[in-house]
């Protein structure tokens, strides 16, 4: 039952929702409405898993005094304080959560994390991007054309460069990306079918039952 009930539920929901797409009968639409509402509620609870795992990891690190345990205090304190402020004072504009924590802490931290990637990308491009093969040369040329064509200086160098870059994006790039899209879509459909039919059971996890 521990495995057969969830598998059966997955099978039933999967088949019903696949068929529902093609059935405009009011009962079908009503079922669709109902399950869509329920999914939104259940999806919100999935947050519990992420938060729980994070808290367990950091409390364990703190308890065992593993390397970097002092920073676990920072994470847990940040989590608890933010959650209390948000739950206690609300999330509306003007609340401490939005005005202080979001605007002046979350935004700069998040933005800066990604901003430093620019430096590492430049360093990686200098050290690792080598035109050793014909394919690498092709990649490099396409990259240079797009990089120049998509900024004003490219147009200043040659007025047709933006057009050429647009052609690279619309023709060969489009063809390649479409091929990849086919592969991804077929893979997603195959995986969805395997999940529904119970062939793919990794989501059940291990352990007894």
């Amino acid at each position, binding site marked *: 039952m521990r495995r057969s009930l969830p598998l059966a539920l997955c099978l039933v929901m999967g088949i019903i929702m696949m068929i529902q797409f093609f059935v405009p009968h009011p009962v079908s639409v009503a079922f669709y409405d109902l399950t869509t509402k329920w999914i939104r*509620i259940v999806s919100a609870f999935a947050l519990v898993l992420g938060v729980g795992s994070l808290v367990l990891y950091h409390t364990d690190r703190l308890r065992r005094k593993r390397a970097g345990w002092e920073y676990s205090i920072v994470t847990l304190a940040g989590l608890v*304080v933010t959650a209390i402020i948000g739950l206690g004072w609300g999330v509306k504009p003007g609340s401490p959560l939005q005005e202080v924590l979001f605007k002046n802490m979350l935004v700069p931290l998040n933005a800066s994390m990604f901003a430093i990637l620019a430096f590492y990308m430049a360093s990686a491009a200098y050290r690792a991007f080598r035109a050793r093969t014909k394919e690498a040369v092709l990649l490099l040329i396409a990259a240079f054309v797009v990089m120049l064509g998509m900024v004003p200086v490219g147009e200043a160098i040659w007025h047709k460069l933006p057009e050429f870059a647009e052609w690279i994006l619309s023709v060969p790039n489009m063809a390649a990306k479409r091929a990849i899209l086919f592969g991804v879509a077929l893979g997603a459909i195959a995986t969805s079918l395997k999940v529904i039919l119970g062939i793919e059971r990794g989501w059940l996890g291990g352990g007894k039952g």
Partner: protein
Amino acid sequence: MHISTNIWTWVAVLLTFGIFSFLWKDNPFYKFCEHLFVGISVGYTIALTWYNSVYPDLVTPLFREGKPLYIIPFVLGLCYFCRFIPKVSWLIRVPMGFVLGWASGVAIPAYFQTNIIKQIQGSLLTPAIFARWDIFLWALISFIGVVCSVLYFFFSREHKGALRLASETGIVFLMIGFGASFGYTVMARMSLLIGRFQFLLRDWLGVIK
């Protein structure tokens, strides 16, 4: 130059430099900022999930409006908490089965429609392409590119003869596609850095508009 006197702007600036300090080397200030970011993000998510999802979608209809059917998603959601109770941890599979089945069932027709059928329609050579010589040429090149790129990913047969020729043509298109992606990635990363510098120069130092 009008340096900001707002304390929270200074906090944002300090956190920005904290993250940027990683460029010099890993250090406690960076680690503090990194862990703070994780904690605040999760706390923010908890608060927003409660006010935007759980309270209006579950608490209000079930407990305030007394709609009994909402007990089903409520119980399903509570099953997520069983993850942390070893004796009944298998119950987490029930909401997961429900959500996975629903999402997989809904995704299959959507993927077919959007990423297979429409994309095949876009690849087909129709009479409209004969309107102009360049439209015809680019459509033909795209078509060849899509077919050859798809054939590159066909690994069930050894790439010999015609398949090898098609596969090598596909590689050309794929390399151009990856080059275009790299060119755009450079733009993306640089944009994020520019955004951070704009914040420092404008909101903190007041040297630019």
